[in-house]
């Protein structure tokens, strides 16, 4: 792409507007991590198979490793770094700490985001609903029982 036809991409992330230099077809996760330094969002597969790269788009958890950054123009993106700006996000983060819901922590950012998205939609999910919502996310250390406990703590704390 020559300098003449450069497209300026604006993204709203964690409540702030950013002008992004990356080409709009760059997957969002690389823009977040590489250009904006928001490294809390993790890259696990690049195939939308593991959930490590989840972010909120207009309140809903979506994966960011394939979807092009350009597709997020005009949407409200929240990454794990911005979750604490909302009451639900803070409650979920506190619940993960209370339930000790991490081992190595690599999947955790994606899970904290996913649980926040879940509770925005379904404030009191039962265990099966929570399990179904989190099934796109892989954890290899086996923190699942604690994550499910964190869901319970966060929804009860509302």
């Amino acid at each position, binding site marked *: 792409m020559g300098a003449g036809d450069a497209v300026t991409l604006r993204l709203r992330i964690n409540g702030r507007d950013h002008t992004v230099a990356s080409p709009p077809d760059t997957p969002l996760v690389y823009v977040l991590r590489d250009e904006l330094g928001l490294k*809390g969002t*993790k890259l*696990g597969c*690049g195939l939308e198979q593991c959930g490590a790269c989840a972010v909120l788009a207009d309140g809903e958890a979506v994966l960011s490793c394939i979807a092009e950054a350009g597709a997020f123009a005009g949407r409200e993106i929240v990454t794990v770094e911005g979750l604490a700006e909302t009451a639900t996000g803070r409650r979920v983060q506190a619940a993960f*700490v209370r339930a000790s819901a991490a081992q190595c922590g690599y999947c955790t950012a994606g899970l904290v985001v996913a649980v926040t998205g879940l509770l925005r939609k379904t404030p009191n999910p039962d265990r099966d609903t929570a399990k179904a919502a989190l099934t796109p996310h892989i954890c*290899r250390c*086996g923190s699942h029982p*604690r994550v499910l406990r964190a869901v319970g703590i966060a929804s009860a704390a509302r």
Partner: protein
Amino acid sequence: MSLGPHPLVGHWLGAEGDVLVVRTGKVDIGQRISTALMQIAHEELTQPLECIRVAPVATGECPDEGITSGSNSVEQSGRAVRLAAATLRRMATAEAARRLGGEPPDWRLEDGALTGPGSNRPVPLTGLIADMDLGVPVDLDAPLAGPRARPARPPMAGLRDIVTGRYRFVHDLDAPGMLHARVVRPPNARARLAGVDAAVAARLRAEGLRIVRDGSFLAVAGAREWDVVKAAGRLFAGCAWQGGGLPEDDVFARLTPANAERLIVEDGTPRAAPVPPAPDAPAHAARYERPFTMHAALAPSAALATWDGARLDIVTHSQGIYPLRQSIADSLGLDPRAVCLTHAPGSGCYGHNGADDAAFEAALLAMALPGAPVLLKWSREDEHAWEPYGTAMAVELAAATGPAGEITAYSAEAIAGTFRGRPRPGKGRAGPAKLLANRFRADPVGPARPEPNLNRQGGMHRNLDPVYRLPEVRLVKNLVADLPHRTSALRCLGAAANVFALESFMDELAAIAGRDALDYRRAHLGDARALAVLDRLGAALGAAPSGAMAGRGVAYAQYKNAMARVGVGVDLHVTDLSEVRLDRAVIVADAGRVIDLGGLEAQLEGGFLQGASWALCEAVTWDRDGITSRDWDSYPVLRFDNVPEIEVIVLDRPGDASVGAGEAAPGPALGAIANAVCAATGLRLRRLPFTPDAISRAALRA
């Protein structure tokens, strides 16, 4: 390993400002060893946890404790830190008395500060030790703080940073002028690079990308990660490969004693000696099989390396920075003192995954691109296709029985490739030979022919020795060379297949004898702590599940016959589609004195779930062109939808030594699930994993 070469208090403890610094050679891989070591220092020195820090684990700065593996860290590093702290407490008390008066027994230590006779001005420990000479030997007989009345639940180190996205993994590192890098790999392990399309390479270079080639090792680097990812794909498309192909014959047909180097195993230790004949006409005999299994870490391996012309700095998530330093220095012809490795967190690895290979590959790139920090990341496909797998393994068991069905003679043969793939110095340049990239360089090294692990409870013979009291035992280790894939240490080593086999076999024998599975095990156990675990398990389980295609299984093991004792009970059902659905699990464990109850529970739950994933999902697949399990669809793992309710019961033994538990649960998990599937379906499955396809085929055969 720990105190021997690092006998001084100062090797383990120090002070920086008002922070007590704990030094260790063991790295935190999500198993919470940092939290446990901080808790130990806190117990001995009363220093508040928030004023204790574990120093970065780096060569030349931390004790060389070899490899973080084998559930050894609490026993090795934990013991060293505890004794060093107890020695330091006595030294600091004496120092306070010497400087400020009174006798040492008059001084009280509380919240990390000493208070002397007739004074209410506490003297902070860190202030005292800052001026003390810590080059004093650790006293192995230093009196220890008494065990706590109830096990502690210290907060997990780093957790708040993890949930807020501030925790930094190797993958997240940044440095001025840093280049991202990806390796372009051959289609399979035996293919070699014949040539690279010059036009493709020229276009990439014109776009500012750097291409590094050494024989068949090919990589691309550039300033922006996504550009590098795309460039790696374009470069691969411009590559011509030759030769190669993987053998497609049935690996289980190769896993026989006839193809193996054979050793007898006595008291957990292998020895070259004539193998006694197999028992003839045993009452029961069976063979159990496990496929090649991946570590399949969630994060692909990564490393950051910088070469300034004289010194090579590498940040890595390797579990063994000192042996890796030697192996990398040898590979590159460098003085090991010119190579500095620092550990930074990766994702959980569960053994020797791609971490060490990625560190060396980053080093090769850094040497080719002097001055630029190079952050190399493996792709998901790299990790699935190129990590060193856990070997396929078979276990052949046979038993003679007495009038009540009790075992009177027992034979066990383990048959497998090697678990010893870690790069560490040894004969025939064993370190370089075990680093993946060395096989592909213009001047290749390796692969090394596997040598049998002769260590007690090491390798495939871990837990080959039955934990039960059996009158006559015959144990054989069979090492098979030339299996199709590179293999190395995977959580539990042979204990996973050995416990799966033995605990399945115990249930089969109990059924033949018409006895209850728990009672049958009890009858073969003399160890009161084992019996306590089984009693507690039986009580916690309650009534067995009823209903069509529902069943319960139990299993027991003591890791290495010396570490944590774990009993597992599983309730599950099998669906119309032959899917195993896990409903409930109870884990009862005795790991001696508990240091960090939350960490112990997490390791037991996590170990159970990894065992469950092995039991139900995991198997490496390949064809003649290469590995076909290259992502999470082709290598499925256990996910949230099949996570049961799990109850963990820890029997605290404050008067007994703390023993490792990180690898104690997967073996019993495998056994309990196999036994529960049999209870639910009547089908005895002896080859992992129990996929719907495997269950359907077994049903057709039945």
